[in-house]
């Protein structure tokens, strides 16, 4: 029964919903892309020089403790209503998770391997590029996957902060779109999250050397980080 009405709502509002999906994806792409550009190089570099553990770990802990709506609210006072503010808030929320995973991934590469690489005459950058990064990649992607899900799930809050668009707009406006509209938009958000999660799962998998696949260690490491 509800399925039928959801389909009907979708049919009646296809172009609106697709527009909102596109807006949501844009928001996700912008925020996540910027977060990756900031956090990955920084985390990888800190991990490579094995410095800043305190910074990398604690930034993530504090970042985890930030209420997303509060970050958006404070951003409003600086950037005003709109896309930019929400995007910056999402960047702030995504950076810690990616940064910490990138740091842990590179920092945790077996020192026997990096020593062997140095012993064979590789420079620091060559060691990073040819040894540390390939090994760190699965865990690095695990962090990005977590962050991506978090960002997608948080985009609807944009509507509360006056950003004009996105599926959150539909969810927040039960008065206009009614119950079925809320459910449909929520389902679309979940679908987007599911698709993005699947994409990153694929990336994570293809980044794992075949010889290590099926071993639980690497993937488990990523989830341990989330659970603590």
């Amino acid at each position, binding site marked *: 029964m509800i399925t039928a009405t959801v389909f009907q709502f979708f049919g009646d509002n296809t172009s609106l919903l697709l527009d909102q999906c596109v807006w949501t994806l844009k928001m996700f792409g912008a925020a996540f892309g910027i977060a990756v550009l900031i956090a990955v190089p920084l985390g990888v570099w800190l991990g490579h020089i094995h410095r800043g553990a305190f910074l990398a770990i604690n930034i993530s*802990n*504090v970042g*985890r*403790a*930030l*209420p*997303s*709506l*509060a*970050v958006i*609210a*404070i951003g*409003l*006072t600086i950037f*005003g*209503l709109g896309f930019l503010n929400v995007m910056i808030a999402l960047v702030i929320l995504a950076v810690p998770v990616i940064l910490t995973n990138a740091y842990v991934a590179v920092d945790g590469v077996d020192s026997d391997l990096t020593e062997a690489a140095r012993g064979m005459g590789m420079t620091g950058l060559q060691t990073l590029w040819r040894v540390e990064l390939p090994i760190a990649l699965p865990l690095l992607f695990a962090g990005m996957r977590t962050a991506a899900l978090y960002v997608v*799930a948080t985009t*609807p*809050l944009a*509507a*509360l*902060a*006056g950003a004009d668009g996105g599926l*959150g*707009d539909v*969810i*927040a*406006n*039960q*008065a*206009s779109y009614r*119950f079925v509209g*809320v*459910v449909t*938009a*929520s389902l679309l*958000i*979940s679908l987007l*999250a599911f698709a993005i999660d699947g994409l990153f799962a694929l990336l994570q998998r293809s980044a794992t050397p075949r010889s290590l696949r099926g071993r639980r260690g690497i993937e488990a490491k990523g989830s341990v980080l989330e*659970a*603590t």
Partner: protein
Amino acid sequence: MIGILAQGGSGPVIPDFGGGGAGNSCVRDNGFFCWNWFQQNWSDTFQPRLIEHIELTVVALAIGFVISFAAALFAYRYKWFDFPFTTFSAFLYTIPSLALFQVLVGITGLTLATALIPLVTYTLLILFRNTLIGLQEVPDEVREAARGMGLTRRQILWRVELPLALPAILAGLQIAAVTVVSLATVAAFVYDHGLGSPIFDAINRGTFKTELIGAGGLAILLGIASYAFFAVIQRVATPWARYRRA
């Protein structure tokens, strides 16, 4: 589009940015943070909202913990229960919070329950998994030694297994607490309660900066404080865990 927010009449005096009104030039110009105004409204806006927020968090966490703990103990004893409960709580976890609040308005109305139920559901997955995994990761030889020394099943659970699971349980509570603090601000969208209320008020009244920073800042401080609270508890309650080998 934010019309729904305009419920609840206990908000602070609406500042008039155009002039006059509060008779405070900082407020009139919507300055970045008007300390005066924040101080004047502390006792009738910010303090009660902060307390409400803490209450909401504690109640949601307590209910969530009781449910998850019981479920985890049950799943520890009867393994078949793990999968359905994990699946169920993971499903709830994936619903966007705003949507869950909105959907519940249609069922439980604009009440405390509408705010509380989603908050509780978001704690279930973390608390259940962490408690169960904490119990399952008790080393076999420790369990066997306990049995061999003549501890009863109940004694093993309460004296050995649960204390050993405590770091995992506390880590779960820590994440759950931070999550609830965060989502409780969103809950104000449907139930006028907690630090989310002044945030929505401020947005509604034309992004009144002082109120946004005051309430948002308090929410952030509360999030960090709840994180730190459990970090301290963990350190005090499990001194032995510091010496654990990697």
